[in-house]
Each structure stands twice: as C-alpha cells, then as structure tokens.
C-alpha cells in the first residue's frame, strides 16, 4: 500500500480533457437483445400507428359517411370491386387482430400467476388468432359477388386437386 502522497501524485495520469474522454465514451451497450418481448412491444407501437389511420377511416366510412343500414351486401361488393379496399381491409384485419390479441396476451401475463394456466391461455389465444385470421382472410380474399363461400372454396380446392 502506498501512502506516500508525492509518489502517488507522480503516478497519477496527467489531467487533461483528452484523458477524460478516454475514460468516458469507450463503450455503450450494443443494440439490446432483440428478444420476443422487445419485438412485441415494438409491434404494438408500429401497428398502433398504422391502425390510427386504418381503423379510424374504416369506421368513418362504415358508420359516418354512409349509414350502417346502407352497408349491405351490394355496398360491400361494390367496394371490393376495387382491389385497394381488399388490401386495405386485409391490413386492418391483420394488424388489429394481432395487436389486440397481443394485448390480451399481455393482460393475461399480468393476471395469471400459474405457469400452467398461462400456457393454456396462450395456446387458446394462438388458436383464436389463427382461426379468426383465416376466417377473415378467406372472406376478404375470396369474396366474389353472388358466389358463396362454400362454392368458392370448392372451386379453389377443385383447381388445386386438378
């Protein structure tokens, strides 16, 4: 142990601004782990921003500029004649569904303590997500005026098997 102050002062690095920076800015964390939770948090924000436009405009069209009572089969059919609206609805459906169900996942994570239950609920959520997404997708993609879903699916399968 050195207690001689003169010796100690001699050993000391010469104080200068350069010295300070050399101790300071050497490191910073690399980008944090891109874990699932980080992704989920990001997804909330990104999809949220998208949904502001998608959902609000959708609601405006369906409830304000046109009264709900007029949004009948023919109205939808007219809209879907333009592929833009199909893409629009696809996006809306996908983002809202996964945004929302991701929210439910978080809520369940908060309130369900037991690991087993949490797993069960998450599997159910996953199942709901896939089912509803397929249901919605199928409708939006395959909708043709005056053709019902069963026929469309049948036709699709038919071509497929051929």
């Amino acid at each position, binding site marked *: 142990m050195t207690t001689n102050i003169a010796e100690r002062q001699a050993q000391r690095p010469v104080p200068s601004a350069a010295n300070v920076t050399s101790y300071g800015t050497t490191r910073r964390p690399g980008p944090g782990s891109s874990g699932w939770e980080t992704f989920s948090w990001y997804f909330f*924000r990104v999809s*949220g*921003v998208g*949904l*502001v436009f998608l*959902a*609000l405009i959708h*609601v*405006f069209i369906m*409830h*304000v*500029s*046109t*009264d*709900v*009572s*007029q*949004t*009948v*089969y*023919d109205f*939808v059919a007219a809209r879907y004649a333009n592929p833009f609206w199909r893409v629009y609805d696809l996006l809306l*459906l996908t983002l*809202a*569904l996964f945004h*929302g*169900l991701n*929210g*439910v996942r978080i*809520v369940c994570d908060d309130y369900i303590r037991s690991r087993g239950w949490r797993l069960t609920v998450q599997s159910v959520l996953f199942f*709901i997500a896939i089912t*509803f997404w397929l*249901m*919605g997708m*199928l*409708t*939006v993609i*395959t*909708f043709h005026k*005056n053709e*019902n*879903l*069963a026929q*469309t699916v049948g036709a699709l399968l038919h071509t497929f098997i051929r």
Partner: protein
Amino acid sequence: MYRGQSGQWSWLLHRITGLAILLFLLVHIVDITLLGFGPTIYNDAIAIFSTGIIRLVSTALIAALLYHSFNGIRIILIDFWPSGYKYQQQMFYIVLAASIIGFIPMAFYILAPIFGVCPAGACNTPAM
C-alpha cells in the same frame, strides 16, 4: 384502492377500451364471414347493426376507439420523444379533449337515424 394520478386512469381506460375493441373485432370477423353465404343471410344479419340498441353499442365502440387511438399516440410519444414524459399529463387532457371532440359529430351521425334524421343521406332503423 390506490389513489393514483391521471396516468393510472389513462392506463386502465386504455386497457379496457383495447379489450372492448378486440371483442367487437372478433364479432365483426364472424359477421363478415357471412358474406360468403350470400346476400340474403348477410343482409339479414347486418340489419341488426342498424337497430337502436346496436347503434348505441357502436357509438360506445367509436368512443373507445377514439380514446384508445389518441392515447396510443400519447404512449408512443412518451416512449420515443425524450421529453414526452414531462407532458404526459397535459397530453392526457389533450387525448380526452380530442376524443370528445371527435366523438360528438360521429355519435350524431350514428344515433340520428334512431330519430329518423339521416345526416349521411339514406338510412333506416329497424325495430329489434
């Protein structure tokens, strides 16, 4: 009960509105699936949306959606704008104000048909 400040209530509301909108979305997916079963089935089903009660529910949905979207923007600002946290309370009041301002005309458009007024042109309100 904890007497939290506005942040606590804004969060609670955000959570409830989010879940409510999701519930509506799930129902909505079911009803659009009916499109595939042809116009009669679909139109019969969708007519329910024009009833008074469901009109009321829809306005609630609109309120929820407005609040949830504006508050979502507030949260995003707190997260990404370094001084966002300082203004969180003010932003909350702005969110409330914006939601209400957006809500009033929209509610009018949706609810007016109950009283036979059709601000959007054609409308009708079947009895349940």
